[in-house]
């Protein structure tokens, strides 16, 4: 198939940036979206142009590195799918595709489709852990964690830290991302002790790092490639209230 792409090109953080148009030719439906971009880049290199810069690494939907807004939707809008797992069979010959970076105040564009997501790191550093140190811990079976609790924690822990939730949110809030970690650790006996301090420090950091507040649009859940549920935001709010008590 042949496609017309409109891709965001921006030299660096200071540059204004604009959409450029490229043709993607002879694309097979078995190719992934990123393999399609690889093809376009090969053509650009051959004609002496700067290829499109985009983040990617594992290409199997788990590292959270890939991050593109496709036709207005983070990761392309296919259910539970990252850009790297999106396949060209979802498109048809002659389609026009708009490709842009994550857009959020907390994620400045560094080049083309690459953004700076270090603000997400700060949220984890604020409290996304249990304060155990290496060695001197109890046997793994000393704490019994019934399957429903372990499953709940795992549902939350599946977050890959991609930031699509932020990119989809009208307020650029990182609430879904933060709530996933808060909820995972709040339900586990290992994390309960620090739950109050954790929720406070993590949500405080969320605001100081330039993310917006959550006003319940739930766009994040739509965009999330790992199906992280907004029920965790409700859980975070409950944990937050508890922390004030």
């Amino acid at each position, binding site marked *: 198939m042949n496609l017309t792409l409109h891709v965001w090109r921006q030299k660096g953080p200071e540059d204004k940036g604009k959409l450029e148009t490229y043709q993607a030719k002879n694309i097979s439906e078995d190719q992934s979206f990123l393999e399609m971009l690889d093809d376009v880049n090969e053509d650009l290199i051959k004609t002496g142009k700067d290829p499109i810069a985009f983040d990617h690494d*594992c290409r199997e939907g788990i*590292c959270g*590195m890939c991050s593109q807004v496709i036709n207005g939707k983070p990761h392309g809008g296919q259910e539970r799918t990252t850009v790297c797992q999106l396949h060209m069979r979802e498109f048809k010959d002659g389609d026009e595709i708009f490709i842009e970076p994550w857009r959020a105040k907390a994620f400045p564009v560094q080049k083309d489709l690459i953004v700076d997501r270090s603000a997400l790191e700060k949220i984890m550093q604020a409290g996304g852990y249990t304060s155990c140190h290496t060695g001197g811990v109890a046997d793994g079976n000393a704490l019994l964690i019934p399957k429903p609790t372990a499953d709940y924690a795992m549902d939350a822990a599946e977050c890959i830290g991609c930031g699509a939730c932020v990119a989809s949110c009208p307020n650029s809030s990182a609430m879904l991302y933060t709530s996933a970690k808060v909820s995972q650790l709040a339900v586990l006996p290992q994390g309960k002790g620090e739950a109050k301090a954790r929720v406070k420090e993590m949500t405080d950091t969320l605001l100081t790092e330039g993310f917006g507040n959550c006003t319940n649009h739930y766009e994040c859940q739509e965009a999330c490639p790992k199906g992280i549920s907004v029920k965790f935001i409700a859980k975070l709010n409950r944990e937050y209230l508890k922390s004030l008590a």
Partner: protein
Amino acid sequence: MILDGKTPTGPIEKSWDKARFDMKLVNPANKRKFKILMVGTGLAGGAGAASLGELGYNVEAFCYQDSARRAHSIAAQGGINAAKNYPNDGDSIYRLFYDTIKGGDFRAREADVWRLAQVSNNIIDQCVAQGVPFARDYAGYLDNRSFGGAQVSRTFYARGQTGQQLLLGAYSALSRQVKAGTVKMHPRTEMLDLVVVDGVAKGITVRNLITGKIESHWGDAVVLATGGYVNVFYLSTNAMGCSVTAAWKAAKKGAYFANPCYTQIHPTCIPQHGDKQSKLTLMSESLRNDGRCWVPKNEADCDKAPGDVPEEDRDYYLERKYPSFGNLAPRDIASRAAKEQCDDNRGVGPGKRGVYLDYQTAIDRVGEATIAERYGNLFEMYEKITAENAYKRPMRIYPAPHYSMGGLWVDYQCQSNIPGLFVLGEANFSVHGANRLGASALMQGLADGYFVIPYTIAPYLASITPGTVKEDHPAFKESVEQVEAQINKMLNINGKKTVSELHRELGTVMWEDVGMARSDASLKNALKRIPEIRDEFWNNVNVTGEPGEINQQLENAGRLADFLEFAEIFAKDALHREESCGGHFRTEHQTDDGEAMRDDENFCYVGAWEFKGVGVEPELHKEPLKFENVKLAVRSYK
């Protein structure tokens, strides 16, 4: 030269405890004065940096991704082994030790493997304490599954995302230390050289991948935890950025590269769809717990829909060849068996390079819901890539390059032959011998990071004065100049081929001639082709863009340049090793029924190569392997 692994003597059961007791310690008040550079923050590096930071050392950690949480450890699916014996099915530290030595086809050091088996139990406890949500039963106890090469159920897992959860555990410990100020993170930073002063590792030269600036970092010790090198095959299950660069730069500064020819071709990957493919996707080996491998008995049936091939016309070749391990035969054996069926023209799918992995029997036995519970995310991933529903139609799988058992040579302390340079995780060669068993790499990464390096680095640090060499030393300037010169050279070739075209060419040679089965002729062909591709690279590559900006072409070009040198040592190692063992299969050395034939008389050693210059014959150093606790025997899974 005969290398000494400096393994402890005496009874193996006491070896690690005794070694730990014998090691010198660093006074707590002095720890802060020592700066440790940790290159790589996957399971090995992340766990190591966090643990060393906690102990009070001054740690600086580096990774090329934008976050430590994205190291390729994140992609591990199946699970992590430990000798907990929770299921009461006969496991023990000794059995895990034995299985690993045997699985590695008797090409690993006994003492290192013992230590790994011993600390495996601590790892599970540590991860649980961090909040890793391992699978549990309704009463709350940890659940286990089986993996290839073992007859006990010792694999702990977190759905199909075990690596992700373990890495996020290590990342959380690391984040805690970053906040505490003991670890400074340098993401989007790639190590491009090791700085050696008077024969001792004293720092690294890196490129800031955002600004393109070449920077120097001094350290009292340098620890590499930079992962594996199977991207030398171009198509592999590794992430796009995985490379041999850090390890190879160290090798060029004198570190020996051990057993480069031991690479693992994983049996259960999604077959290649076409020539535009950029990587291969692994389907966890745990799938072989419930899936049955088969191909049609008759070539004529290969184009039929699998459902139309009647039961009696199917060849469940693993069950036929290896009745006691069946579908759980170790990886090297399962991969070669799949290749054999396809070479016999009984493969299925596009290009006939595929075999079926069938769930029908398991679905009939336990129901679709249970299978979905166990492997749901893998079936989902398979469907995304192939648009086929594996609940209804057997999966098609084919082997793909996956893991490197070889790596930088290290002694028992994880220290390379360059004092002050330590190597952890997949980047070293230490415990898997010629073949790694499933669920053992995660175990090794975390063992090295949490429980080995915090102890074994101390004797070295205790023997030196901290901070004697800093960035103003001329060796740093020289290294920066070399790195810049290579970058400028690559940017000014302005040839006709792209980096990925040349990488594909290298990959094809490596896969065809140095892949699953190697012969004298194929290896000699590879040794002719590799330098040709390397020459073409240096004369005809086109690397666009500027040095002082984000430049992904430049990053890839640098990694390929290193693969092109490394590939030669890899093929040389395979050529010199005139035996078949584990992942290294020489067609000249096999039994009548096609099984690997080891030659313990002549090859029971670690082969560690010393780089002598590009295109110059490397020098082989040997470390003899002694087996005092497990009897050297022919590995049989029949």
